[in-house]
C-alpha cells in the first residue's frame, strides 16, 4: 500500500508538471499546427496519464485520457489537422484531467460528479465525429510515420516508470508498473465506444523521443524538500560567521599558513553560499508559462485577438516570491485582456493591427527584478476614471476637476475601484488592483502604472530578488546597529553645524528639515525606540530619508555605516508585536541586529498614510488652493494666528528676563547677535500678550538678518489647503482669515508686520535703484495673492492683481491698467493656467518680451522645462521671498532698456 501511495504521489507530481507544459504546447500548436514534435509530446503526456490511471483503476481519468489520446493520435498521424475546435476540446480535456488530479491529490479519490461522465460522452462523440467526419479516408495513409515510430517504441516505455503503453484493455498486466511497455496495441480497446477507424495505426509512438528527454530529466534533476534548502542556507550563513571568526583568530596569530588556508576556506564558503542561494531561485518562466493558455482562453471569451509575447522568462526569482506574484500577475493580465486591448473591429478603426499584443517581460535591474505587463490597447481614460471614482464616492466632483491625469490613473489602485462597466467573467471578480498593489508591497515591491490613452498601458512591478536576503542600510543609534531595507530608502542627508542651525526647525516636539523647499518631518530613531540618553546637541546630523510609499520622512540616526546584503530572520514571539521591527539579522561579527520596519515607525510617530487621505478629503473645501504647512500660535489663548511654516526659520523659548530694551527696541541675544523681537500687539489690533515668565519666539531669517515674533503659545503645525477669506479682515498686517480646526484663524502678513516694525528691514539697495516697476500678478489663491502682492509692494513695486490666468490676460489685452514691466504668475490656475498665459503673452504684439516669473509651491525639473518652453524666464518657489524679489530685480534691470524700444 505504501508503495502504491508513493507511486501515486510521483504520478501526481509528474503529471502536474507535464500538464502545465501542455497548456503552452497547445497554444503553440495552434500557431504552428505542423509541428510534429509538439503533437508527440502532448500525446505522450496524455498517454502516460491514461496508462497510470488504468493501473490505479481511476476509470474517469482513464476515459478522458483515452479519448483525448484518440484525437491526438489522429493529429499525430496527420489523419486530421489541428484546428481551433479540436484544440479547444483537447484543452477542455486537459482541464478535466487537472481537476481530477487535484481531487486525487486532496481526497485520494476521483471526484464523484456526473459532469465528468458527461464530458467523457461529449469527448467521445467529438472524437468519433473527428475520425469519421474528416478522416475516413486516411486510415491507410500513414504507414510511414508508424514505421518510424515503431522503431522508437523499443526504447520508449522503459524510461518512464508510469508510462503504460498497453492501453486500457488489459489492466491487470500493468500491475507490475508497466515498465515493459507492451506497446503496439490499439487504443480503443478499453473504451466502450471507441472510434475503431484509425485504431491500428496508433502504434504507441509516443515513446519516440520522450524517453530521451525524460531520461535526461531524471538524471539531472532531483526533487528536494524546500525546508532542506532553507536549512542548508541557514547553515551556510553560519559557516560564514565561523569563517569570520576564524579569520580574526588567524589574524591575531599571524600565522601565514593558517591565513592562507583560511583565505581559501573563505572563497569556498562564499561560493557555497551563492550556490545554495541559487537553489532557491526559479525562473519566472514557471509562472509565465501558464499565461499563453490563460490569454488564449480569455481572448477567445472576449472575442479579441491577442498575441502574447514573453520576454526574459529565464529571469530568476526566489521561489517564495514566485508563489506570491502568481495571482497579481494573473489579475493584471486579465485586466489587459478585458479592459485594455480592444476588439478587432475597434482596433481596425483606430488603425491598429486587429490583433493586440500583450507583452510579459522580466529582467533584472539594480538588484531587483522588474516585471512588466504591457499592452497596446486603449490605455486608461483619465476622464472615465474620474467619473467612476466620483460615482463610487472615492473622490468628490470638485477633486475630480482638479486632479491631474497622471494622478487620476493611479486611482485604479484605490480599494473598491473597478472600471469594468459590468462584472464580466474575466475580470471583476472582486479582486481589484488595490489587492495587487497590497500583495506586491507586502513583498517589499512597488507597482507603477503608466498609461497613454489610445496607446496602451504598462504595469511595472519591481520586486526584490528574494525575501530571505535583502539589501539594507546599516545605521547606528544608541550604540546599536539597525538595518533599514533599501527599498524604503530615498536618500541620505548629512547636515553640518551650519545647515543644522538654519534648516532644521523645531515646532513643539517635532522637528522638520527643509529639503529642497519641501518640508520633511524628522523622526529621531532614539526617540522612536525610547532609548535613554539625552539629546546632546551634536554638531552634525545624519538623516536617512525614507519613503513609506505615499509619504517621506527623515530618520535621524547617530551614524550611517554600510550597505549590506542581510539575511532576514523572523522576530521571536516576545518581540513580534513591536511595530518598529520587521525582523532580525546576523551581522558579520556574529551579533544580531534588528531590522527596522519603516511603515511601523511611520505609524508609531503618526505619519500615517490615512492622514493624507483625510487631508485629501479636507481638500475639497478649498478647491484650487495649494496645500502647505502652516504654523498656528497664539498670544492670548482666545486668538489664533497662522503663518506659513516655510517662512519660519526656528522656534525657540526664551525667558522674560532675556528681553532687553535698547534704544526703544526690544531685543534678545540670539545666535551671537542682538535680534529684534516684535510684539505683535504693537502692530495689530489684537489682545496683548500676557506677562509670562517664558515666551516662545518665532524666528525669521530674512534679508540675511534674524528677527522674531514674541508669542505666548505654539499651538500646532498643520499641512492643509488654506482657503483664506479676505473680506472680513484684511490689511494692516493681516492677509485674511480662515477656519482652521474649527476656529477662526487670522493669517498674518509677516513681511508687512516686519516692515512696519522696522521700515528699513527689507531695504535692498538694488531694488530702489531698479524700482518703479509695474507688475501684474496672476494667482488664484487669495492667500498667496495677498502675501505675494504684500511683499512685492513692500519692495517698492506697483502691483496689479488678477485672480487667474484669464483675468490677467484680459487685463493685458484690454490694456486698461498697463503698461506692465513684468508678469508674476502662478502655474496651476483655473480657466487659464500659467503656461497658457505665458504662451499668450509671448504671442502678443506688445508684450512679446515681457519678463515672466512663474511661482509655484513646489517645482520639479519637469515643470521648469515646460515653463521655459512656454516662455517663462524664471521659476521660483512662492514663499521664497528673497529669491522672488531677486528674480524680479534682475529681470527688470536686465530688460528695462528693451521696454523702451
Amino acid at each position, binding site marked *: 500500500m505504501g508503495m502504491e501511495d508513493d507511486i501515486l504521489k510521483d504520478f501526481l507530481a509528474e503529471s502536474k508538471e507535464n500538464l502545465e507544459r501542455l497548456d503552452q504546447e497547445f497554444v503553440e500548436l495552434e500557431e504552428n499546427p505542423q509541428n510534429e514534435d509538439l503533437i508527440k509530446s502532448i500525446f505522450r503526456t496524455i498517454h502516460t496519464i491514461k496508462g497510470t490511471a488504468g493501473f490505479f483503476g481511476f476509470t474517469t481519468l482513464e476515459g478522458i485520457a483515452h479519448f483525448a489520446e484518440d484525437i491526438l493520435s489522429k493529429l499525430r498521424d496527420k489523419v486530421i489537422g489541428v484546428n481551433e475546435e479540436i484544440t479547444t476540446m483537447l484543452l477542455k480535456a486537459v482541464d478535466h484531467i487537472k481537476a481530477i488530479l487535484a481531487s486525487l491529490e486532496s481526497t485520494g479519490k476521483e471526484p464523484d460528479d456526473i459532469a465528468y461522465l458527461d464530458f467523457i460522452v461529449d469527448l467521445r462523440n467529438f472524437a468519433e465525429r473527428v475520425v469519421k467526419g474528416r478522416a475516413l479516408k486516411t486510415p491507410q495513409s500513414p504507414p510511414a510515420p508508424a514505421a518510424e515510430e515503431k522503431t522508437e517504441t523499443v526504447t520508449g516505455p522503459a524510461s518512464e516508470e508510469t508510462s503504460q503503453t498497453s492501453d486500457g484493455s488489459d489492466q491487470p498486466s500493468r500491475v507490475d508498473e508497466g515498465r515493459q511497455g507492451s506497446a503496439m496495441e490499439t487504443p480503443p480497446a478499453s473504451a466502450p465506444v471507441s472510434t475503431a477507424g484509425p485504431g491500428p495505426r496508433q502504434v504507441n509512438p509516443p515513446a519516440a523521443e520522450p524517453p530521451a528527454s525524460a531520461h535526461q530529466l531524471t538524471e539531472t534533476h532531483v526533487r528536494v524538500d524546500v525546508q532542506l534548502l532553507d536549512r542548508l542556507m*541557514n*547553515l551556510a*550563513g*553560519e559557516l560564514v*560567521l565561523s569563517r569570520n*571568526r576564524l579569520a*580574526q*583568530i588567524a589574524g591575531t596569530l599571524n600565522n601565514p599558513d593558517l591565513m592562507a588556508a583560511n583565505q581559501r576556506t573563505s572563497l569556498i564558503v562564499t561560493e557555497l553560499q551563492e550556490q545554495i542561494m541559487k537553489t532557491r531561485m526559479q525562473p519566472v518562466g514557471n509562472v509565465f508559462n501558464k499565461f499563453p493558455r490563460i490569454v488564449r482562453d480569455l481572448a477567445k471569451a472576449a472575442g479579441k485577438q491577442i498575441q502574447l509575447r514573453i520576454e526574459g522568462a529565464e529571469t530568476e526569482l526566489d521561489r517564495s516570491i514566485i508563489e506570491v506574484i502568481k495571482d497579481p500577475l494573473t489579475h493584471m493580465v486579465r485586466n489587459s485582456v478585458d479592459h485594455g486591448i480592444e476588439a478587432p473591429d475597434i482596433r481596425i478603426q483606430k488603425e491598429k493591427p486587429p490583433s493586440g499584443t500583450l507583452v510579459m517581460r522580466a529582467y533584472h535591474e539594480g538588484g531587483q527584478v522588474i516585471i512588466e505587463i504591457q499592452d497596446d490597447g486603449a490605455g486608461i481614460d483619465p476622464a472615465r476614471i474620474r467619473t467612476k471614482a466620483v460615482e463610487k464616492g472615492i473622490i468628490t466632483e470638485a477633486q475630480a476637476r482638479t486632479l491631474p491625469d497622471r494622478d487620476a490613473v493611479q486611482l485604479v489602485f484605490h480599494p473598491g475601484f473597478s472600471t469594468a462597466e459590468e462584472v464580466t467573467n474575466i475580470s471583476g471578480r472582486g479582486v481589484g488592483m488595490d489587492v495587487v498593489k497590497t500583495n506586491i508591497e507586502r513583498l517589499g515591491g512597488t507597482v507603477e502604472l503608466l498609461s497613454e490613452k489610445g496607446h496602451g498601458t504598462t504595469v511595472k512591478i519591481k520586486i526584490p530578488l528574494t525575501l530571505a536576503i535583502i539589501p539594507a542600510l546599516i545605521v547606528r543609534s*544608541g550604540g*546599536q546597529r539597525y538595518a533599514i531595507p533599501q527599498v524604503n530608502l530615498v536618500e541620505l542627508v548629512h547636515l553640518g553645524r551650519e545647515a543644522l542651525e538654519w534648516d532644521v526647525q523645531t515646532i513643539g516636539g517635532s522637528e522638520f528639515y527643509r529639503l529642497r523647499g519641501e518640508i520633511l518631518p524628522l523622526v529621531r530613531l532614539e526617540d522612536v*525606540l*525610547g*532609548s535613554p540618553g539625552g539629546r546632546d546637541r551634536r554638531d552634525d546630523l545624519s538623516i536617512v530619508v525614507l519613503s513609506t510609499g505615499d509619504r517621506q520622512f527623515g530618520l535621524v540616526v547617530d551614524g550611517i555605516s554600510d550597505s549590506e546584503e542581510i539575511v532576514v*530572520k523572523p522576530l*521571536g*514571539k*516576545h*518581540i*513580534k*508585536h*513591536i511595530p*518598529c*521591527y520587521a525582523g*532580525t539579522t*546576523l551581522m558579520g*561579527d*556574529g*551579533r*544580531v*541586529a*534588528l531590522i527596522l520596519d519603516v511603515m511601523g515607525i511611520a505609524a508609531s510617530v503618526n505619519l500615517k498614510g490615512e492622514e493624507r487621505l483625510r487631508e485629501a478629503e479636507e481638500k475639497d473645501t478649498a478647491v484650487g488652493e495649494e496645500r502647505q504647512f502652516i504654523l498656528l500660535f497664539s498670544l492670548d489663548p482666545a486668538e489664533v494666528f497662522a503663518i506659513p511654516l516655510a517662512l519660519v526659520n526656528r522656534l525657540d523659548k526664551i525667558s522674560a528676563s532675556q528681553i532687553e530694551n535698547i534704544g526703544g527696541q526690544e531685543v534678545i541675544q540670539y545666535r551671537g547677535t542682538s535680534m529684534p523681537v516684535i510684539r505683535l500687539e504693537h502692530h495689530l489690533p489684537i489682545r496683548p500678550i500676557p506677562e509670562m515668565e517664558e515666551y516662545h519666539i518665532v524666528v525669521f531669517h530674512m534679508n540675511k538678518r534674524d528677527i522674531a515674533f514674541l508669542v505666548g503659545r505654539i499651538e500646532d503645525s498643520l499641512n492643509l489647503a488654506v482657503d483664506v477669506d479676505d473680506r472680513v479682515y484684511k490689511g494692516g498686517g493681516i492677509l485674511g482669515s480662515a477656519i482652521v480646526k474649527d476656529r477662526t484663524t487670522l493669517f498674518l502678513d509677516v513681511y508687512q508686520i516686519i516692515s512696519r516694525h522696522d521700515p528699513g528691514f527689507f531695504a535692498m539697495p538694488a531694488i530702489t535703484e531698479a524700482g518703479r516697476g509695474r507688475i501684474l500678478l496672476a494667482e488664484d489663491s487669495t492667500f498667496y495673492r495677498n502675501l505675494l502682492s504684500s511683499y512685492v509692494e513692500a519692495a517698492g513695486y506697483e502691483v496689479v492683481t488678477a485672480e487667474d490666468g484669464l483675468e490677467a490676460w484680459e487685463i493685458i489685452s484690454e490694456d486698461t491698467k498697463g503698461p506692465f514691466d513684468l508678469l508674476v504668475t502662478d502655474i496651476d490656475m483655473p480657466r487659464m493656467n500659467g503656461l497658457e498665459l505665458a504662451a499668450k503673452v509671448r504671442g502678443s504684439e506688445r508684450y512679446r518680451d515681457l519678463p515672466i516669473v512663474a511661482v509655484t509651491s513646489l517645482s520639479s525639473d519637469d515643470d521648469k522645462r515646460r515653463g521655459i518652453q512656454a516662455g517663462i524666464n524664471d521659476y521660483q518657489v512662492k514663499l521664497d521671498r528673497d529669491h522672488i524679489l531677486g528674480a524680479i530685480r534682475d529681470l527688470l534691470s536686465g530688460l528695462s532698456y528693451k521696454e523702451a524700444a
Partner: protein
Amino acid sequence: MHGMETHLPASIEPDLKPSSGGGRQFVTFSVGRHSFGLPIEDVIEINRSLDITPVPMAPPHVAGVINLRGHILTSIHLAQRLGIPDTGEQKEGILHNVVVGSREEPVSLIVETIGDVCTVPWEQIAPAPERIEGIHRRFVKNVCKLPGRLLVILDTKDFEEPDGEDMRRDLGAP
C-alpha cells in the same frame, strides 16, 4: 566575546546525582538567592554569556536577542521575569544562557550560576505553596525540599509564550 560560546552539555556532572529510577531530573541554577530547576528534557543547552543585542521597546523582561549558531533567540531576563529584585548587575561576566523550549522557537533564560543536574525522588516534589517570597507565584510549578535549600521548579511553557498583559501594555505605550 568571540570564542566564548562554549557549549556545555546540559547534563553536566551527571555523576554527582546519578539518576535513580524513581525520580525526575532537573537542571538547577540560581538567580539572586533562589535555586531553580527546570525539567532536564526541557533544556536544550546551556551557554556561557553570548552577546546580547538589546531590543528597545520590548517588555522589560526581554533582555534582547542572541545568536545561537545562526538561530536568533529571544533572551529572557529570568530575574526580571520572576520579579526578583535586581541585584546581580556586577555578575555580568558570568551570566549563563539556559536555552529551553521547543525546537521551533526556543528561548534563552539568563541566569546567574549553573548548578548540578539533580534527580529528585517523586515523593519530594511538592505542589507550589501559596506564596514564595520575592517570586511571581504564577511561574512556580512545584517545589522540592532539598537538604539545606528549596528548589523551585519552573514551567518552561510560561517563558515560551509572551505575556498577554505585557503585550497590551507595550502596544498601548506611546
